[in-house]
């Protein structure tokens, strides 16, 4: 601490921020006698000077704070320059406010000074955290990219997922941490999941096999069905035509045609197949004088265009009882449509 400074500090409690027209006790210990002249100056000038000094102090303080890194660098003496500047300013200090600013500047400067001193800690072989980080990255298994483009501070590459685990494992020896306990039984979560998976898998397997079987079967059936239907329909058409040709004048009774006295199911099939003929316009049905349905094939020329105005639908239902009655009433002895040779049922 400089002598003049201590003089100023003693002085500040007594002054209450009033003008600088105080005794020469202010500069009692100060070697600079030219200050005596200031005491006689004008109030206004003095105020201006006070402001100027304060503003210079504030500038100094802010510059120290802003350029902290700069001042810390061991390559320059900027901190010393700041202190010298402050020394010069202090010579003009009269009031408490300026002295307080000076004290603040001193605190900031000494902080920096302490930091600079601690920089001297590393002698010779300094420790560079950046290099340390680089070495650590290599240790943790960083996979550097092929091309060393810039070799800058940023090293590209992938850090493996267990990088930090690897480091933790290797540095465990440096720690004397008390091992923490954990239950050897583990958690309850381990139990439920495996059985679930097993069950699911078992279920899935039969499904697959079943699916595999199904398509082939279906294909066969579908084919057989379609073919059978078409074949049947054509066959029935053939019979109808031949019956009609034999006796064009006599109308063919619908019931006589379709009913098979030996089999109810065959009857239903015949009805089913005959309905296709009606739908496709290859046969027609009409009521005769006795109001009984009769059928006849449609001649080539008579085929009406599809979607014609005559679009009639009717539903025929037959129960085994009805079938029996028809067989008795019509005295149907034998079927007009012989059953097909290939039995697919």
């Amino acid at each position: 601490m400089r002598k003049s400074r201590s003089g100023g500090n003693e002085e500040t409690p007594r002054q209450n921020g009033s003008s600088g027209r105080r005794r020469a006790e202010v500069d009692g210990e100060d070697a600079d006698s030219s200050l005596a002249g200031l005491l006689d100056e004008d109030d206004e000038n003095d105020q201006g000077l006070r402001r100027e000094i304060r503003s210079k102090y504030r500038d100094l303080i802010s510059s120290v704070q802003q350029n902290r890194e700069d001042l810390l660098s061991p390559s320059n003496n900027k901190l010393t320059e700041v202190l010298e500047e402050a020394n010069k300013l202090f010579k003009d200090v009269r009031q408490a406010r300026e002295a307080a600013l000076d004290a603040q500047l001193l605190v900031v400067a000494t902080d920096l000074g302490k930091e600079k001193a601690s920089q001297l800690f590393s002698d010779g072989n300094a420790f560079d955290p950046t290099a340390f980080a680089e070495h650590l990255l290599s240790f943790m298994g960083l996979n550097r990219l092929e091309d060393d483009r810039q070799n800058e501070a940023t090293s590209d590459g992938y850090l493996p997922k267990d990088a930090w685990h690897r480091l933790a494992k290797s540095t465990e020896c440096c720690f004397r941490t008390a091992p923490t306990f954990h239950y050897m039984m583990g958690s309850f979560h381990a139990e439920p999941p495996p059985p679930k998976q097993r069950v699911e898998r078992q279920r899935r397997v039969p499904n697959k096999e079943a699916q595999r079987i199904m398509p082939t079967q279906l294909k066969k059936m579908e084919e057989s069905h379609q073919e059978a239907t078409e074949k049947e329909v054509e066959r029935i058409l053939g019979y109808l035509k031949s019956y009609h040709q034999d006796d064009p004048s006599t109308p063919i009774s619908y019931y006589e045609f379709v009913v098979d006295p030996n089999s109810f199911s065959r009857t239903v099939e015949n009805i089913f197949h005959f309905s296709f003929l009606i739908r496709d316009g290859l046969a027609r049905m009409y009521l005769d004088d006795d109001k009984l349905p009769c059928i006849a094939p449609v001649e080539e020329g008579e085929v009406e265009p599809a979607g014609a105005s005559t679009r009639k639908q009717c539903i025929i239902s037959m129960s085994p009882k009805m079938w029996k009655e028809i067989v008795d009433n019509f005295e149907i002895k034998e079927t007009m449509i012989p059953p097909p040779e290939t039995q697919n049922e």
Partner: protein
Amino acid sequence: MAQRKRLSQHNNTQTASQLKRRSSSSLTQDEDEEATFTQPSTSQVQRGLEKLSQAQVDQKTAEVVQYFLMKDQKKVPVRRAELVKYMVKDYRTIYPEIIKRAARTFEQVFGLKLVEIDPKQHMYILVNNLETPARAGPVECPTNPKTGLLFVVLSVIFMKGGIVKENLIWHTLKKLRVDPGQKHEEFGDVKKVVTDEFVRQKYLEYLRIPHTEPVEYEIRWGPRADLEVSKAKILEFIGQLHEQDPRSWTQQYREAHGTQTPGQASRSSSQR
């Protein structure tokens, strides 16, 4: 309950008022507890022991031991206040005896050391009493990646003289792909881990630098680190990493292998 009446009036009234203030934070309650709990004298302890059976004291000791082990999972130190409040309770007159027995149990049964790291606030931690084996032990313990992070922070601080500005730590960590501004996939909020978790666990101290605008902080080793971490081993590891002889960092070497206790060494070298 009969015992409680025989305790000093002081303790009695305080406990009652504390029960009323249950809503206040646990910290202030602990502090109140601290204020009221005076370490019983040896004679008080003797008298207390006479009134209780051996089995009771052993039971209480066992409970305290278990409490410590549970708390140690998170590595947060245990305060005397919370011990007294939750565990010791009516047995507070023989508190020193319980602690003594618990410490003995730790040492003889678990190979751990019960250390009081803060004589003012009376905080305890558990430290491994055994030297870590050179080779990995037969039991595979899952490693905590945070240990790696802690190692980096501690070693940088140590090599830089025992105290560093937080910016240096963030700068170094960024080089390691750990950015305090971003969420890290392993560590999450890195800043919180370093400045909060490690500080609570007493591995680090996060102190404000006075007279800085905007506020800056510095980080130094905490009391748990002083007890648990071996500077010599850190230096050795770093030597291997840099492929240099640890002795080349003379000052750090001296500190690591010095006769001073590590805590004293770091404090004196930073010359605050």
